[in-house]
């Protein structure tokens, strides 16, 4: 049923267009502090691209390439990164979720000019790092939900 995959034409077109969807989603995640977007929106776009690959190739073939607990490890890394940045703000800034990078001469540290400016990716403080952590968490979480439900609706027993 859902784990046989589709024909050769569908598999080829899905493989060709998957890198473009990936770059589009990562662009939305990385420029979250300059243009509309951010972690949640870009994560949803990349998860849709991964769902397209899952439909084209079938869930049995995907489960021979990766295991389901490897994808869970990525989600745990994203969640721990988000909480770790919040606690680092408590250590170095004084309050929970403090912005401790802005003002320092390291990456993402400068402040933009007031008013209407052009986009400078070197600004933003702790916001781009939080965008990457939340984006990784959303990608891994949504893809693991879709993978488990696609496998379990074709087979009678569970996944592990």
């Amino acid at each position, binding site marked *: 049923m859902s784990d046989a995959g589709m024909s050769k034409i569908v598999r080829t077109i899905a493989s060709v267009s998957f890198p473009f969807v990936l770059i589009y989603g990562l662009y939305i995640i990385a420029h979250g502090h*300059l*243009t*509309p977007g951010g972690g*949640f929106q870009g994560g949803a776009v990349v998860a849709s691209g991964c769902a397209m690959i899952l439909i084209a190739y079938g869930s049995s073939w995907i489960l021979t390439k990766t295991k389901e607990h490897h994808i869970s490890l990525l989600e745990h890394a994203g969640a721990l990164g988000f909480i770790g940045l919040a606690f680092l703000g408590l250590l170095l800034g004084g309050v929970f979720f403090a912005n401790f990078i802005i003002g320092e001469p390291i990456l993402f540290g400068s402040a*933009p000019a007031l*008013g*209407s*400016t*052009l*986009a400078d990716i070197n600004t933003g403080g702790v916001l781009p790092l939080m965008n990457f952590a939340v984006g990784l968490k959303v990608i891994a979480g*949504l893809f693991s*939900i879709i993978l488990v*439900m696609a496998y*379990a*609706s074709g087979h*009678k027993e569970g996944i592990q």
Partner: protein
Amino acid sequence: MIYNIPYLVVVGLILIGLFAVMFKRNLIKIVIGVTLIESGVNLFLITLGFRKDGVAPIFTGLPEGVNYPADMALPVPQALTLTSIVIGVAVLALMLSMIIHLYRHHNTLDVSKIRRLKE
């Protein structure tokens, strides 16, 4: 009254979803009704934060002649709508998993028959 059309659209969405939850018998139609109610609430949260002739609250590439707190839309309702959309996705995933289990156990999708097979 013509200036309140977005609020009437929100009321229409919520009433259609409520009708589907109360009076339909197929499990999938009930889940679609719950999703419609959640979409109506998200639309209501966004339309609370609009200012007349306003632009998006983003400073990159702002057009000329826009004075900034008085002509921009409010950013806080947009941030709360983001959280609400993610909550809707989580509830939908759990509901669909339970529907798969119910179908495997009772072999039907009709709510009134599932109630009668209780033993």
